[in-house]
């Protein structure tokens, strides 16, 4: 070992496998649907409305109620509490439709039967009559009708209109990009078990157990302490199991309480994709003024985000899009206006990046527009606009960027990826090839870490040391595959200097750690790691105190060594010390709490410090495009990403690679397609295409930067990693644009919206050819 110091197994920084890796590969990791069902468990089905916007004039469920196997049928009238599951309590998100259908697929009623097939068959017997109402199905329609779920928001810095008008060059444009289905492999599922006093225990696949608990209690008309939510693991979340888990949990809970029988709601893939929210699609209108070097003098963005029929988390998501409209670029004068559009489609929700990717896409389009106009390499335009150190470092929301490493990162990646030589090589190849054109792009990421709703930046943990020295760890974070449980366990192991295998990782449970925030905003390790570290530190302190007393040494003479404690010149194993401490009546259970320091934000002035710090990264992507069909391949990708000092490099690399591929899917093959009646027609993997193994670039070089730790006092100086890497995939989109631009000598910005399906790529090629001919 480099330090020459013995270390525990599973220390901070060690590339340990996922805590459940062996269980995953043997099929013994249990997900909610795998739990042995209690006797008499009912299965649920929700009937989807067959209109985008309508009034239900008649709902006759007589035949449904008497169908074979049916135990219970629920309508809005059967809800004892409040018919609202809005995560912000906006009263616009009914558990069951109360008369006005707001999107095609909205649950009208719920059937509980002995089997899922019976519940579905029974629901088909419903007689429903609708009176059609005018439906707003697109962002354009919503803008025209001024149909919004929430008020507009604005960021203002300087005098943007004047700055743009005075700039040597001005450009403007409109760019649109699609949404994205989470496509977690495990669909939404909840198993509700009635307990005593009309209470309920819910096994739920959710990123936000507390919100499920609170909203279920509200639906039941009960206090929060009547509802317990437990989550061992999810089969993927990506933001889609934050607010979207509540509806199915609440229906299961309601059936359980009403019938006294266990009730399970598992959405099948199609229902899941039709009935749950997705990433917001945006239209972005932009104007920019810039000088001859490509430096931006002023930039104006108008974001129009499709919220769908209700607010859900759209306010915070659209805010984050505004906070990332600058990406890594300093904007002297900036104006960002955000519309949160209401449409009669499913309510969009959190998805990895939470608006950040959408905001960044806008300015990366602008950068390319500037580069084409000035006939510069887009990388040079990017570099001339990066945030500075000490100067040129204030964001459009007036936060000072103190930790930018984007210039160093890009300099290293530019060299390691051989960007300039490849640029020349590609020019040669493109000149020689009439039909297959190559493109190259390097794009940066600067992503703000913290919930922008400041109060959410709190976390709790609970640790027990049993008197045999084994440890039980619990905290408010949830495990959805991201390796959070292992990282937090490594933090605790490090703090107590015991091998990782002594620590039992346990399911997230609202009865153990209350009032948790969602495992979201990439904050899981930062916050729960700190909370668990605090709990472990409390225990360690008690053990030090006890050891000092027991061995009659000063506290300063007590040291925690790997799996043992030294007190003066004596050593004792951790287990033995714990046993002695127990016999001496030392409390061996502790809670820990953490709240992120330094952050604040004033919504009235749109200023403050919403982020504790920023995570950075950059990627270079190369593509080859078939100009006859619009098909393409991503042939090589180089990534340099910033996780500060990694808690677990294997887990972090997994997040970087996986996030990149997921982002690439969003911008390339994943297309959500609604018909003109508002029906989503891409609601299963047969029609909705996430990347497969062969879409992974054959040459894929991923590295974590090793020159800078987090300048803030984060957990072991690490940085959050869940979301930022997704945005590295913007380089793929820009590389496609670059390949297309090559057919017009890179003098024009191709008109290309996302996702860049082969169809959109071909249309872009044809439009550019028409423009130059």
């Amino acid at each position, binding site marked *: 070992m480099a330090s020459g110091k013995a270390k525990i197994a599973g220390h901070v920084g060690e590339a340990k496998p*996922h805590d*459940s*890796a*062996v*269980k*995953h*590969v*043997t*099929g*013994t*990791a249990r997900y909610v*649907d795998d739990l042995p069902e209690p006797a008499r468990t009912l299965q649920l089905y929700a009937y989807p409305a067959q209109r985008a916007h309508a009034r239900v004039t008649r709902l006759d469920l007589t035949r449904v109620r008497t169908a074979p196997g049916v135990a219970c049928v629920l309508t809005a009238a059967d809800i004892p509490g409040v018919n609202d599951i809005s995560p912000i309590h906006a009263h616009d998100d009914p558990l069951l439709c109360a008369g006005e259908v707001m999107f095609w697929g909205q649950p009208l009623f719920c059937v509980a039967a002995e089997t899922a*097939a019976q519940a*579905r*068959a029974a629901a088909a017997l419903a007689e429903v009559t609708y009176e059609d109402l005018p439906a707003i199905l697109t962002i354009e329609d919503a803008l025209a009708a001024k149909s919004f779920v929430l008020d507009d928001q604005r960021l203002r810095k300087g005098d943007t209109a004047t700055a743009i008008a005075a700039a040597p060059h001005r450009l403007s444009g409109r760019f649109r990009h699609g949404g994205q289905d*989470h*496509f977690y*492999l*495990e669909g939404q599922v909840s198993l509700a078990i009635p307990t005593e006093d009309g209470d309920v225990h819910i096994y739920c696949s959710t990123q936000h157990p507390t919100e499920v608990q609170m909203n279920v209690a509200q639906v039941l008309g009960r206090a929060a302490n009547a509802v317990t939510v437990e989550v061992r*693991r999810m*089969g*993927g979340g990506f933001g889609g199991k934050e607010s979207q888990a509540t509806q199915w949990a609440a229906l299961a809970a309601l059936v359980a309480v009403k019938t006294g029988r266990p009730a399970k709601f598992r959405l*099948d*893939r199609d229902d899941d994709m039709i009935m749950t929210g997705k990433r917001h699609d945006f239209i972005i209108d932009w104007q920019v003024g810039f000088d001859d070097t490509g430096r931006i003098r002023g930039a104006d963005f108008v974001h129009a985000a499709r919220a769908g029929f209700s607010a859900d988390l759209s306010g915070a998501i659209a805010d984050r899009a505004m906070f990332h409209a600058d990406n890594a670029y300093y904007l002297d004068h900036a104006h960002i206006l955000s519309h949160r559009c209401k449409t009669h489609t499913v309510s969009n929700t959190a998805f990895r990046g939470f608006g950040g990717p959408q905001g960044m896409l806008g300015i990366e389009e602008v950068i390319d527009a500037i580069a084409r106009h000035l006939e510069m390499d887009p990388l040079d335009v990017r570099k001339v606009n990066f945030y500075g150190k000490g100067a040129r470092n204030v964001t459009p929301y007036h936060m000072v960027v103190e930790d930018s490493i984007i210039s160093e990162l890009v300099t290293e990646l530019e060299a390691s990826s051989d960007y300039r030589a490849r640029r020349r090589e590609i020019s040669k190849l493109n000149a020689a090839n009439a039909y297959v054109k190559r493109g190259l792009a390097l794009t940066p990421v600067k992503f703000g870490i913290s919930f922008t709703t400041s109060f959410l930046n709190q976390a709790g943990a609970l640790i027990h040391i049993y008197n045999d020295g084994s440890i039980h760890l619990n905290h408010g974070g949830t495990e*959805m*595959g*991201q*390796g959070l449980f292992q990282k937090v366990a490594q933090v605790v192991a490090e703090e107590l200097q015991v091998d990782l295998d002594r620590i039992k990782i346990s399911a997230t449970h609202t009865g153990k750690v209350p009032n948790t925030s969602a495992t979201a905003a990439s904050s899981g390790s930062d916050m729960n790691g700190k909370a668990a570290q605090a709990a472990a530190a409390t225990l360690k302190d008690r053990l030090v105190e006890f050891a000092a007393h027991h061995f009659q040494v000063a506290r300063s003479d007590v040291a925690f060594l790997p799996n043992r404690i030294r007190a003066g010149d004596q050593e004792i194993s951790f287990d033995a010390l714990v046993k002695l401490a127990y016999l001496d009546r030392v409390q061996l259970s502790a809670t820990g709490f953490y709240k992120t320091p330094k952050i604040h934000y004033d919504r009235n002035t749109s200023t403050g410090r919403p982020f504790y710090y920023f995570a950075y990264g950059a990627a270079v992507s190369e593509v*080859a495009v*078939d100009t*006859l*069909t619009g*098909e393409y*391949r991503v042939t090589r990708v180089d990534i340099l990403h910033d996780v500060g000092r990694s808690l677990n490099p*294997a*887990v972090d690399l*997994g997040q970087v*690679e*996986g*996030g990149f*591929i*997921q982002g690439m899917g969003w911008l390339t*093959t994943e297309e959500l*397609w609604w018909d003109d009646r508002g029906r989503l*027609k891409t609601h*299963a*993997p*047969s*029609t909705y295409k*996430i*990347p*497969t*193994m*062969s*879409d*992974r670039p*054959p040459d894929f070089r991923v590295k974590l930067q090793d020159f800078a730790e987090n300048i803030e006092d984060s957990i072991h100086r690490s940085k959050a990693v869940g979301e930022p890497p997704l945005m590295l995939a913007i380089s793929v989109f820009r590389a496609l644009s670059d390949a297309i631009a090559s057919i017009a000598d890179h003098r024009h910005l191709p008109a290309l919206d996302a996702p860049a399906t*082969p*169809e959109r790529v*071909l249309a872009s090629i044809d439009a550019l050819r028409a423009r130059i001919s």
Partner: protein
Amino acid sequence: MAIRYLLGHELRSVESASPTETVLDHLRGVQHRPGTKEGCAEGDCGACTVVIGDLHNGAMRYRAVNSCIQFVGTLHGKQLIAVEDLADDDLHPVQQAMVAAHGSQCGFCTPGIVMSLFAQYRNSAGFDAQETADALAGNLCRCTGYGPIVTAAEMALKDRVPDQFDARAQETIAQLRAISEGGADDPGYFAPRNSNELASLYQAHPAATLVAGGTDVGLWVTKQHRKLDPVISLAEIADLQTIRETDTDIVIGAGVTYAQLLPVIAPLWPDFAEILRRLGSAQIRNVATIGGNIANGSPIGDGPPCLIALGARIVLRQGDARREIALQDFFLGYGKQDRRAGEFVETILLPKPKAGWVFRAYKISKRFDQDISALLGAFHLRIDGGKVADIQIAFGGMAAIPKRALAVENALRGQPWNAAQIEIAAKLFMEDYQPIGDMRASAAYRGKVAANLLKKCFIELSDPVTETRVAFAGRRTHG
């Protein structure tokens, strides 16, 4: 229904099951084996992948399949291996590699990934990146980005050591022989053993649903929630699963799977093979049959346009009566085929390659692997003295049926093979086809690309060194 099969190494006997109960529901619900997951219930995500072992030419054969769309009756006489069966005292080498390479994150796709890797472990000589991509194209992972899984495949496959299934091969063969008698037959589910039995059964039950690989019919059950009664399974009809040659034709039994067909096609028509490589996934190709791909009459099946362009004919059988028709004449209209009550597709007659003819085919989809075509163009032609001596063009995805482009062909036949004539002919696709727009592509894109594919075919044949494709995993051996 009396079904006997091995679950891992243990005999299971199922006395009663719905004929359309899926293997996945059986595993999870009846056998209490929740390791295998449902991700989509349509054979597209692979989370439900299991491996089926059967006796083939006296040895064990192992194939990955999607348990979510396989009916439980297909298990009779076979070995079903699910994720819980792989480890003995130690993890199986593919499991060890998945742990060591950090190949799982959320873990929900992992059992399916492990089973596809296991199938590859059984069937591969070593590691090959393209083979692994093909073996796992039907396994979606939303977390890892696949890199660690490729690494795991390499670790497990490069130094393959015998596993417990090698050690128990003889024992397994004996066990399967002992249970192979009888069958799953009951009034709702028939599994005839030869085509004569099938012919008489189908005549007696003309309303029955024929199920070969079940990769389409399975979805009628899991997605459309239809009740099928009775079902006639074609999976055990050995004489429909043969490929033989005559002087003029390759004679392909309707029950031949695409996995069987691919190596026969590869040396003859590399483009056809490339399309078959991208058709479905390994799990689909292992059971999906050429006959099923024809008989279901889909306008977007990938086999028929290629077969039509190559001049394939089919033999239809009703009882003892047989008739032979050109494949292109089988498709009458959307959902309508020239097939009489009790009549089934028995064989496909694919003319052998003829001197001077060249074949090009292009599958266009949003995603390269495991995606349904937006359109597929197949071009079969002979150039002689700078002129088009003869040409057959067929497209899928452009009409309600797989269909010839007769107007385009006529504009080319006998004409000079040059860019000017191609321009003229390409405009005529709009006479041959009135494509629809849907979630896979707009009508305009389909029309535009059909014309461009003809141009691409021209470029490739007239200027073979020019780069025209961004993806081609096959090996072109000629023209």
